[in-house]
């Protein structure tokens, strides 16, 4: 049973558009929420992360929005570029040093 639910499974966006990926969780013990980016044939790499005491975090074109009461968080990719085409995973970390991952979203940016 997946502890972090991620949607959509895939999305296609035009260059310059906004990509939005949503995640939801139930376990209130989660206290750190990273997003990972994975290119084909590579391991996942940390992209951006947020703690539940912050409602938004922005790094360049990537923004995490966090709604603690709804137990939901999302990744927004602004001005999407072809180089952003990858699979994105949300995850949640609890104090037992383990990560729970969402199922992943494949983003395709069309030029």
């Amino acid at each position: 049973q997946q502890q972090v639910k991620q949607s959509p499974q895939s999305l296609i966006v035009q260059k310059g558009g906004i990509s939005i990926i949503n995640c939801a969780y139930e376990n209130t013990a989660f206290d750190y929420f990273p997003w990972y980016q994975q290119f084909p044939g590579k391991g996942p790499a940390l992209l951006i992360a947020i703690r539940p005491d912050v409602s938004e975090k922005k790094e360049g074109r990537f923004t995490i929005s966090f709604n603690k009461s709804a137990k939901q968080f999302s990744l927004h990719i602004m001005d999407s570029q072809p180089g952003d085409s990858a699979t994105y995973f949300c995850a949640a970390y609890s104090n037992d040093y383990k990560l729970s991952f969402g199922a992943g979203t494949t983003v395709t940016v069309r030029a």
Partner: protein
Amino acid sequence: DAGITQSPRHKVTETGTPVTLRCHQTENHRYMYWYRQDPGHGLRLIHYSYGVKDTDKGEVSDGYSVSRSKTEDFLLTLESATSSQTSVYFCAISLGDNEQFFGPGTRLTVL
């Protein structure tokens, strides 16, 4: 890949044979993890280690065993491989401060 190597990178084996995958790190990180990645499931934790000879089970540990005799090496063994263990296996390391760094992965096919 943050000083993490995995070997072999690709392996094809037959049902019922034993298989050992190796993860080697040069970072002296305390925590090491083995995940499997399958379409629609994201990354699922198999086993993890919090020190030499200290290991524990993850959510999909059945059919797998691990060993860690040195800080730098974490071995994953499939005692008798089955077709359901065909997957991409990732090793990750962590200092225990939430962030995990992933290796390049091993693609295992069990015929």
